[in-house]
């Protein structure tokens, strides 16, 4: 009876069933491929190579193109037109010969006949407001898009080009060889749109009270497309949702605007002394060494005084930006301007804000401080902010990021009062958009393909920064105790993850093709990283790996795999299961307690053992000596006396064994456990997660146990665990701190607690 050597364990009935029931099934089942939740990601990941390594770092042959711009721009405020002439120096660092170049014409999404205008389906509405009707069926669309005046080589020859929607191919007279450089120029202009009525990222806001405009101008010039080892030319058209894929380079920009405008832009201002008034320049100099609070360069009174006077003169602001992937600017005579210095590691960085009086008093109070907080916290978790400044510009209802500068919403009521919602919304969006300097401005992922790589990582960091802001400025959040972050906490993603599957896409989807971009690219990846940090990896391992990723890819172009691989490579935590579940699928977490069974040590075999033996045509006499018998409390063989006495008193075998082997048994407990429980955990949800359990005992004490996620390796639906204890178990709670985004908590406890629904709670509240 060889098999009996296996059953020298006390819980015979529990452990042996699996071993003894290996009988051939009546019908032979077909085979299957590996659908295990822990299957390695070899099929999803591309093969590592000399450009990108298996560890997630840039490889020995990693390269990226360099694109430098020299631009002369002029903003015609009266006619709302923007004119530009740019000279591009393209350096081919790739090992490939290039016969044509692709240039991005993002503004063409505003052409009258842009296909993007028809990208969504539309249905006929039998009932419509007159204005909607007019807009849909009678209004002329806005006459936007680039007017390309010339594309010329360095010696002034016209270059042949072909425009395909938002992309322009320039056919080169001779190929650019590896290591080669090419200079060419583009002259263009376009009609600037109203970004408020068109809900755009770039354009102007019109203020009918004083006839002024505030411009926030971005993706406004023909920009080189990225050429790299994963995409070739990244010329996926701009459809509106997927943002940008851009090259690093140096910029020299001369920006001509009405003489009474105040400007902020990507880059270091080269001629402050020439452009600013004597008083403004004095304040500007003072701000460079003021670290405690913002210095106002242009006051509200000064800005208001200019509102009625529209200067006919012009001024040229000159900027130089090193190693940036884009250039953007803001310009208006309405702007109030403040700034303060922030120490970031060894560097001094200017935190700057630009806002019309409509933003006050909120903006002068919080904008620059929120910028400073972002620089501080993000730098701590990634790398020291490498640029000389970070600017927050007030825009009515959008938030959008560019290198060193971003647009943010948050406008008080006309009487200057504002709700907490407006205040927290503004602080959040400033932190978020300034944070985008790290992802994707510096850790330069491809937004056109992967919205989550910058939005998800940034929203995750935003959560940490907001919480820190609350700690640093308790008076700003009072009477709350923590900053009310909208995203990040696991419970916040539950409504999305538990929603109708037909409207959910995996995170690893193109941003154009998802139903709910907000939760898909921002909320869910941010929550996933938060759970990874707090619950799965722990802060130390996570923070080290996350920082490694940021530092490996600083000023480079990472892919999703580079991130996934680095997080594992730097932590020794196998996370293939986590990426597979959270990023490649729409599965959700739902783990519950199935049953809890109580067992006692019994003097004789119970009914279950008898049945088991009978199956194998054996009797208890066939069993070896020193067997321990267990009986479930709900079994017929259970007798109350078993519960009344100890395991040793119940089992002569156990007593004998202990006495005979006393010297060899390393016993920390002199008494064997009194209570034995078999707890079944069920997993209706598709995601695997560590099993976080709180056991409550009759004496009022509790115990936390975290079973590793690997418990689900061999059975994805349920798993049983045995708890041997001297205390009587009275309760089991799964995920007691709600840290896993479990979508259904009604099955999370034993005994099942009847919870009043939120609806009933609300009804009770309004009655009370």
């Amino acid at each position, binding site marked *: 009876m060889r098999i009996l050597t296996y059953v020298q364990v006390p819980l015979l009935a529990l452990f042996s069933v699996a071993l003894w029931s290996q009988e051939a099934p009546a019908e032979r089942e077909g085979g299957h491929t590996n659908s295990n939740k822990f299957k390695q990601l070899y099929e999803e990941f591309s093969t590592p190579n000399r450009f990108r390594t298996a560890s997630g770092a840039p490889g020995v042959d990693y390269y990226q193109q360099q694109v430098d711009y020299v631009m002369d721009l002029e903003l015609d405020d009266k006619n709302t037109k923007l004119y530009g002439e740019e000279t591009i120096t393209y350096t081919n660092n790739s090992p490939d010969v290039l016969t044509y170049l692709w240039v991005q014409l993002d503004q063409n999404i505003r052409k009258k006949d842009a296909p993007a205008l028809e990208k969504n389906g539309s249905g006929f*509405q039998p009932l419509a407001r007159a*204005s909607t009707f007019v807009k849909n069926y009678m209004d002329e669309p806005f006459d936007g898009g680039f007017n390309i005046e010339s594309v010329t080589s360095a010696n002034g020859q016209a270059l042949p080009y072909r425009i395909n929607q938002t992309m322009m191919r320039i056919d080169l007279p001779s190929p650019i060889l590896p290591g080669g450089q090419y200079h060419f120029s583009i002259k263009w202009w376009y009609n600037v749109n109203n970004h408020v*009525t068109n*809900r755009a990222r770039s354009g102007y806001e019109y203020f009918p009270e004083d006839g002024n405009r505030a411009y926030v101008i971005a993706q406004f010039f023909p920009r080189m497309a990225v050429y790299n080892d994963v995409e070739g030319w990244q010329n996926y058209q701009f459809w509106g949702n997927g943002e940008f894929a851009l090259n690093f380079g140096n910029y020299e920009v001369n920006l001509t605007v009405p003489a009474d405008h105040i400007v902020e832009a990507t880059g270091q201002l080269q001629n402050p002394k020439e452009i600013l008034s004597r008083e403004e320049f004095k304040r500007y100099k003072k701000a460079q060494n003021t670290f405690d609070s913002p210095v106002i360069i242009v006051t509200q009174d000064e800005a208001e005084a200019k509102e009625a006077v529209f200067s006919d003169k012009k001024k040229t602001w000159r900027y130089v930006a090193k190693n940036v992937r884009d250039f953007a600017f803001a310009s208006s005579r309405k702007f109030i301007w403040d700034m303060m210095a922030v120490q970031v590691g060894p560097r001094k960085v200017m935190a700057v804000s630009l806002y019309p009086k409509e933003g006050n008093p909120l903006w002068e109070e919080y904008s620059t401080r929120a910028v400073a907080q972002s620089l501080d916290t993000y730098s701590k978790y990634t790398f020291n902010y490498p640029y000389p400044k970070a600017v927050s510009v007030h825009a009515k*209802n959008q938030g959008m990021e560019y290198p060193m500068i971003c647009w943010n919403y948050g406008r008080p009521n006309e009487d200057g009062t504002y709700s907490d919602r407006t205040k927290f919304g503004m602080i959040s969006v400033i932190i978020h958009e300034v944070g985008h300097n790290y992802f994707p401005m510096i850790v330069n992922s491809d937004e056109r393909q992967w919205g989550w790589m910058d939005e998800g990582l940034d929203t995750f960091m935003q959560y940490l920064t907001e919480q820190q802001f609350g700690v640093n400025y308790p008076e700003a959040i009072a009477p709350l105790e923590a900053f009310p972050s909208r995203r990040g906490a696991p419970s916040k993603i539950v409504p999305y993850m538990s929603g109708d599957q037909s409207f959910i896409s995996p995170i690893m989807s193109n941003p154009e093709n998802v139903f709910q971009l907000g939760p898909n690219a921002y909320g869910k990846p941010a929550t996933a990283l938060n759970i990874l940090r707090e619950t799965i990896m722990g802060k130390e391992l996570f923070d080290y790996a996350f920082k490694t990723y940021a530092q490996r890819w600083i000023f480079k172009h990472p892919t999703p795999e580079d991130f996934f691989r680095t997080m594992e490579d730097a932590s020794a935590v196998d996370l293939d299961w986590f990426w597979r579940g959270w990023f490649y699928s729409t599965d959700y977490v739902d783990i519950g307690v199935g049953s809890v069974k109580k067992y006692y040590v019994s003097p004789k075999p119970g009914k279950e053992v008898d049945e088991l033996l009978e199956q194998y045509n054996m009797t208890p006499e066939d069993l070896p000596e020193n067997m321990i018998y267990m009986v479930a409390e709900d079994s017929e063989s259970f007798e109350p006396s078993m519960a009344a006495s100890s395991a040793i008193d119940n089992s002569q075998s156990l007593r004998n064994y202990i006495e005979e082997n006393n010297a060899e048994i390393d016993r920390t407990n002199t008494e064997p456990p009194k209570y034995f429980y078999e707890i079944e955990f069920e997993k209706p949800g598709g995601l695997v997660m560590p099993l976080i359990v709180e056991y409550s005992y009759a004496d009022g004490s509790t115990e936390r146990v975290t079973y590793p996620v690997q418990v689900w390796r061999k059975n994805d639906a349920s798993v049983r665990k045995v708890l041997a204890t001297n205390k009587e178990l009275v309760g089991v709670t799964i995920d007691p701190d709600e840290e896993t985004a479990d979508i259904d908590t009604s099955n999370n406890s034993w005994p099942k607690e009847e919870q009043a629904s939120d609806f009933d709670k609300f009804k009770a509240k309004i009655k009370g």
Partner: protein
Amino acid sequence: MNLQTMFKKIGLLFIMLLTMGFTLHDVYISSMKMELIPTSGELQLTLQVFTDDLELVLQSQSGEEIQLNPDRQATNSLIAAYLKSVLKFSAAKTPISLEYLGKEYHDDLTLIYMQAKLADEMSELELTHQLFLSELPTQQNLVHFKSDSYRKSFLFDARMQKSPIRIRP
């Protein structure tokens, strides 16, 4: 109507041609939990909307400055009247009246509670759901119906404003 209010109104109606960038929130969507309690025939509705959308629509409907969370003026009757005009339930062509219970704010969301009493024999309802559609043409309205273990979800939008909802399997 002064110039300013007029401008505001035009602004509201012209909103959202393209969803771009990181706007106030990234998508125009509402969701409504709809649970039938079989024992009592009570239909419990919890409508979840973004507070700024609701504020914008109430302003557009009333032509007044409205501020929610904290409310500057009493808004419950305004909300109840608006919802009556855009959320309509009927069974066999007979309208079912909805009782507005109240609302709660959760961060940037407003949760609105409503209920209706359904007759025992009823097996199918018709829901006309036009929430925010006049002001936000790309608005999507999700409805999650539940009764015991039976669940079904629906998506309403400008194209799909009316749908039958089976309430007993």
